[in-house]
């Protein structure tokens, strides 16, 4: 479980996060949604340690980030897996080398053990037989799956996914969503997904947090979100007239 308490972050004159608090639970897909510029990515980057919040605390299973030494923070990072928006696969490495890299760098496993783990992770994301391919030879959906394999190879406690469906067709996006959900439940990971895709929200949103202008505006489940009838969240969900019409004709 990760708890963030009153996180604030400013870039120059612009205050991007104005005091966000939330709890992200184990074994669940916690979705952070919001318009572009609402502070989703900055929240996630603060949580993974890429940005230092100006104030507030992040508590990883009872371990307070503000009271941690440098080495303890580094150790926390080894418990984090992250799927990037653009996958961030290492261009100069093959699929196998990409997934194996954290094992090479941080473990003392022998070559056979590493290969077993790499092959297990690639099988888990249905990417077996691609070991020797380079990221440039893969489609967008395949890259995302390799990104997930790399993110879970170290058995992370926390999985962060930044816009996992961006650039994917709706069908492939569903595949990626379900993969994230299955892995979250199978390994009891605390998963935080940053998205503005309503299909993802409805499909895997065990818990949904809506950010607006750097503040937490709403919190609930994917079942509750459709009961919203007005306000910023309503505008976000039913952004187009088509969806508003669809909602008007649907029975909820």
């Amino acid at each position, binding site marked *: 479980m990760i708890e963030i308490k009153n996180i604030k972050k400013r870039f120059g004159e612009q205050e991007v996060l104005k005091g966000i608090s939330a709890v992200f639970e184990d074994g669940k897909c916690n979705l952070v949604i919001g318009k572009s510029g609402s502070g989703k990515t900055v929240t996630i980057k603060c949580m993974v340690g890429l940005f230092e919040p100006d104030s507030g605390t992040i508590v990883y299973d009872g371990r307070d980030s503000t009271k941690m030494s440098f080495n303890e923070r580094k150790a926390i990072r*080894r418990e*984090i897996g*992250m799927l990037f928006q653009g996958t*961030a696969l290492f261009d100069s490495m093959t699929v196998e080398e990409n997934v194996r*890299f954290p094992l*090479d*760098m*941080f473990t003392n496993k022998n070559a056979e053990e590493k290969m077993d783990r790499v092959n297990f992770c690639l099988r888990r994301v249905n990417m077996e037989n691609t070991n020797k391919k380079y990221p440039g030879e893969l489609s967008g959906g395949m890259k995302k799956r390799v990104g997930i394999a790399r993110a879970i190879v170290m058995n992370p406690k926390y999985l962060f996914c930044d816009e996992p469906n961006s650039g994917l067709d709706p069908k492939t996006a569903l595949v990626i969503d379900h993969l994230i959900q299955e892995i979250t439940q199978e390994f009891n990971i605390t998963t935080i997904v940053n998205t503005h895709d309503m299909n993802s929200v409805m499909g895997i949103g065990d818990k949904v947090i809506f950010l607006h202008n750097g503040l937490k505006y709403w919190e609930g489940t994917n079942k509750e979100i459709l009961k919203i009838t007005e306000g910023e969240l309503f505008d976000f969900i039913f952004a187009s007239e088509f969806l508003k019409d669809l909602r008007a004709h649907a029975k909820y």
Partner: protein
Amino acid sequence: MIKIFEAIGKFLLLMWNAASKPEKASMYWKETFRQCHDIGIGSLAIIAIVATFVGAVSAVQFAYQLRTISLVPMWWIGSIVRKGMILELAPTISALLLAGKVGSNISSELGTMRISEQIDAYEIMGVNTPAYLIGPKLLAGIIMVPMLVIIAVFLGILGGWWAGIMGNYYTTTEYFRGVTDNFIARDVNIMLVKSVLFGFLISSISCFKGFMVEGGAIEIGKASTQAVVFSSIAIVIVNFVVAFLML
């Protein structure tokens, strides 16, 4: 002015972090060998071609001038080419070439990694990115540039011999008499000092410009250009300082 001091401060901090203790030495060595291959083997052909012709043209030009002064023996050309290649031409021309080839390559590689979040991915894994991504490049630059310069010296001298034989200015015996005449080992020391410094300048400036990229493709292009320009300027300044202090 403040921006210049800020940039120098960031540069020094990055270099300090790049020199910090690696997480796993074997991974760093592997990356260092990869960089040595990219910088050394990858640049060998262009260095060989340029050095050979620089040596050749030096010999031709000195022969042209010495022929008008009949008191100076032609075998001196061997000595002049050797000294010129060791002290100035091989280190400086090789370094300027490498600033263009290796410098732009390093800065665009790191810049692309920064923009495509690959550096963030390393950091989230817990990798010390300056040490892993910059350290091996610095080490490879410091090791490989002097090696390339040594090769350039030999090829430049051979280029001078080849041009002289082709132009019938001197015999092989005469030329190598000049090459071996009054050889001063200190010249080689100066060449090595220059090459090590040039290797550090090319790799460190290029890494700094690439690692600090913010924005998109245009910024990567700018960083790459700046890496080449700043490295080249640093090379000619340091070249003068070393020559002034050591000669």
